[in-house]
């Protein structure tokens, strides 16, 4: 192997070596059994154990997370130290909303290409069930005044000024799932896309049903070996994604009421991603580290891309991020063997597929002379996605990259594209090439 330092930065090869994730645990009212840092630590331990190098050999640890707990500032550093990487491995947390996990991998590959790092632990984590409940600003203002009050008389007087309405809690999670600029919820952006591309309720529910069926089949076939079990302190172990509804049906899905645009909308809890806790990690390495430790890469990162668009149509992000990669490499949609498009909403994934088929959208929005065509359904999210296994926002970007590499290896595919839509109106995409033994 040619020593990488003689290569121009852009020519340095970057590999995905190995990865692991926690099972994704659905929020069932109240905080789940694991905080974000705990998820991140437990998900990585088995992964690190099976490497020929030690945790202290990483050049850096990068972790994506949208909302770490108040006691988890720079959660990447918390996880890194708790994993035994030692005092001297730098660690930093990245946040690009729903793509934070993908952002971590992109940051890792960029530092490797620049020659600043050789071996990076990158991933994403989110404990959505631990999202804080907040006091309103009015309440906080009152509280700080009341604390300053002196003597019992003043304090009782202060109580008199308290308005019951101020006691209403602010649900942090709902704030996070609402676009602060466009003023609409994520679910409403999906409704907007469904309207624009004429996607019916039945198509959404059929997509959701298929997502559950595929996840169920993958589990039974042993295709989810990427999962490392979690153990809580009461002795329970969590070995699989618990949002799976293997018994769901079109009738059951049809019975659900819309949650975002009541009463006329089509986006339901059944055809949206689940609110979930989880973590995913992947080891990213340059050629030097690969040869030093004798690593066996799964895939090589060929390209990554970020794009931005109207926040009200954020679900179209994957189209905007992936198209330029395809265009520059003169690839058609079918030249990519396997696709992961993160399932935030069934309507949103279906809208992406429709957009590439739509001559007008391709011409007017993407600037293409011809429509790109169709992503084959049997090559897209082959083992299920956010609808069946959940979408812990910070973790999903890392999960789809990891799982896509596993799928390419298993199915002996060559090219894979992982892409994700991002609240706030962005999209991210990563193109990889299978370099595993099965390539």
């Amino acid at each position, binding site marked *: 192997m040619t020593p990488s330092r003689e290569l121009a930065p852009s020519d340095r090869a970057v590999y995905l070596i190995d990865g692991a994730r926690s099972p994704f645990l659905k929020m069932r009212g109240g905080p789940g059994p694991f905080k974000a840092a705990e998820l991140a*630590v437990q998900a990585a331990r*088995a992964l690190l*154990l*099976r490497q020929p190098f030690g945790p202290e050999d990483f050049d850096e640890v990068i972790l994506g997370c949208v909302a770490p707990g108040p006691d988890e500032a720079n959660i990447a550093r918390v996880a890194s130290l*708790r994993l035994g990487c030692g005092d001297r491995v730098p660690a930093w947390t990245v946040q690009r909303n729903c793509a934070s996990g993908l952002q971590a991998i992109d940051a890792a590959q960029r530092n490797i290409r620049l020659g600043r790092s050789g071996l990076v632990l990158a991933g994403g984590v989110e404990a959505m069930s631990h999202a804080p409940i907040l006091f309103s600003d009015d309440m906080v203002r009152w509280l700080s005044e009341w604390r300053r009050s002196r003597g019992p008389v003043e304090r009782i007087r202060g109580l008199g000024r308290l308005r019951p309405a101020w006691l209403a809690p602010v649900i942090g999670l709902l704030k996070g799932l609402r676009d602060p600029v466009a003023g609409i919820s994520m679910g409403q952006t999906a409704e907007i896309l469904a309207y624009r591309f004429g996607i019916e309720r039945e198509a959404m529910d059929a997509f959701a049903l298929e997502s559950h069926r595929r996840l169920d089949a993958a589990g039974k076939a042993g295709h989810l070996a990427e999962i490392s079990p979690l*153990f*809580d*302190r009461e*002795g329970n172990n969590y070995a699989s994604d618990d949002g799976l509804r293997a018994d769901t049906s079109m009738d059951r899905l049809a019975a659900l009421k819309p949650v975002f645009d009541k009463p006329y909308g089509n986006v339901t809890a059944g055809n949206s991603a689940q609110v979930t806790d989880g973590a995913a990690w992947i080891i990213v390495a340059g050629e030097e580290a690969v040869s030093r430790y004798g690593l066996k890469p799964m895939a090589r990162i060929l390209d990554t891309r970020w794009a931005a668009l109207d926040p009200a149509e954020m679900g179209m992000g994957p189209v905007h991020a992936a198209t330029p990669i395809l265009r520059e490499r003169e690839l058609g949609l079918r030249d990519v063997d396997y696709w992961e498009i993160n399932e935030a909403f069934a309507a949103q994934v279906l809208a992406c597929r429709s957009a590439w088929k739509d001559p007008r959208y391709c011409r007017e929005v993407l600037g293409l002379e011809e429509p790109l065509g169709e992503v084959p359904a049997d090559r897209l999210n082959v083992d299920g996605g956010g609808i069946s296994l959940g979408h812990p926002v910070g973790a999903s970007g890392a999960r789809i990259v990891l799982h896509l590499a596993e799928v390419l290896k298993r199915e002996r595919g060559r090219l894979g594209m992982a892409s994700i839509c991002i609240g706030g109106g962005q999209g991210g995409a990563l193109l990889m090439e299978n370099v595993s033994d099965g390539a």
Partner: protein
Amino acid sequence: MSGKHWQRERDASGIEWVTLDVAGRGTNVLSGEVIEALAGIVDELAADPPLGVVIRSGKPNGFLAGADVNEFTGLDGRDTALAFVRRGQDLMDRIESLPCPTLALIHGFCVGGGLELALACDYRVALDETGTRLGFPEVRLGIHPGYGGSLRSVRTIGAPAAMDLMLSGRNITSRTALKMGLIDVCVPKRYLRKAAEDMIRTRPRLHDSGFMKRLAGSAALRPVVAAVLRRKVRSRIDPGHYPAPFALIDLWEGAGANTRCWLEQEAESVAELSTTATARNLVRLFLLQEDLKAAADRDAFKPRHVHVVGAGIMGGDIAAWCVLQGLRVTIQDGNPEALGATVKRASALFGRRLKSPRLVTEAFDRLIPDVPGHGASSADVIIEAIFEDLDAKKALFADILTRAREGALIATNTSSIPLEALAADLDDPGRLVGLHFFNPVAKLPLVEIVHGPTTHRDTLDKALAFARGIDKLPLKVSSSPGFLVNRILLPYLLEAAAMVSEGIPAPVVDRAAKVFGMPMGPVELADTVGLDIGLHVAENLSSAYGFEIPQRLRELVDAGKLGRKTGEGFYRYRKGRPVLHGPKRYDADPDELRDRLVLRMVNESLACLREGVVESADALDAGVVFGTGFAPFLGGPIRYLREAGIDRLRGRLESLEQSRGARFAPDAGWDNLPGLIDRATGGATGPQD
């Protein structure tokens, strides 16, 4: 200025810093020579008082560990003991009566006489670290504080807290000590000096125990409080076996307001106690324990990562213990439920021992459930703790050795399979060693280090260092069936089962053992261990030594009544406690019951010595006490044999042989007494280089 054991320095502000650094020892102790030296310094300071005196230690491991136990064993009677105690008391009195403020600057161990010296100072400043430990371990040696500690601790923190500290013998951290009022200030290292200087300059009011605590010690309430204390202690221990705690309560109850008189009585009480067999045996055990510790060279091997295979009770608890001692542990088991159970038990242990949530999280980060067993390839120590099946274990070692690091210690926790059989097919059989832990791992300090004729010296040294490194007491035993502890314990348990088979009620059997001094009766112990496990070990050993297995034991196992874990064994259990039923009165000679139980142990002990399972009678006594909880005040089976009389016990054994059968036939070792128990047996199969 400096002397053999100390340095002195008076700083610019006039504070005298006395640094104790006892020559030739790693730990500061109050030997006669040190007491004399200190007394000399105190006299000089009294003649020319500085602004204040700070007493501190120059040893990294702690302040001061108390009296020199070796000197203590040399005392040959009440009068010499009295002189010994008074000498220490006198030093403390002189420190107390210095005209300037005095302060003890404490780090690490500050126990026994060390704490008494600290209490004789006006102020105590301690380092805020978990390694700072204060306590009165005297009751563990069969005595109680004698250098004025009983008086000064009560005066400082009140009778309830002080008596609890002295009666339990436990160590507390500096933070707990601060809450109690035993110390005045608890600071990190960077403020130790500043805090000491500040206290001496500002001379804050002396700490006293507070009104409520003084009330508990008032003349009116003292008899009531003393009665409560006596009842509490009596529920744990028998005054006939352990007189010291009761003597301490008597001392406090009887002591009046006159401190001179109190100190007088304290000295006499300790002198009296020091002549008892209990104190002699406990001190000997303490020294044997130090010997076991010294047999390991901790620096020889410093593992960081332990891989345990098998998440049963033993494997899981060994893993949790190693984590608690700071190691990183991977625990392998194909069954995630078993790993979950391990985590749950570890959670209870960590919560109890570590308390702080941050430390508990740190511990859990070091405990890694490892279903596929990846940890084996990076571990420094690999311990096999799967079910007792020769073929399964052999297959496991064959696999492990392909993945283990060169130089990793490979060990088995088997309790019944000979090392030779396990190692037979290995390329290098000398690499395998036994690390036999005892259940419950967190309570029993012993680990048998099992070696065979081919075991490498280097492997054995590593095993000793590892066991010591996780704060266990390593005992070398040769690889014969049952090793030492189980082999000696089993005849005792089988005899108890035989008695129950004969129709003697289990509580009667257990009572006989407890009167003798065992912490738990044999029938309850068998139920606690698990009758299936007990039967398995019994079958294994009976083929080697011809033990008879009582019918009742087989019946219970066949009926699925396996003891405490299934809710019924010899006893029935409700909420984990045995339910007593059956006749309260039973006409059995308690002496005969005792002799049947105990003599089978003593007889087996002599067999072990004769065969050279351990190197000496001392090692045997230590092993049986620290591995089974055998009545510590009796000092072990061989010590008991010596004190009860060889001829008398042999006679009892022979008459039992006639009345009860061949299992009481005296071992050939009896013919070689007292030689066998007086010297180290030469025939031990030592390891080869």
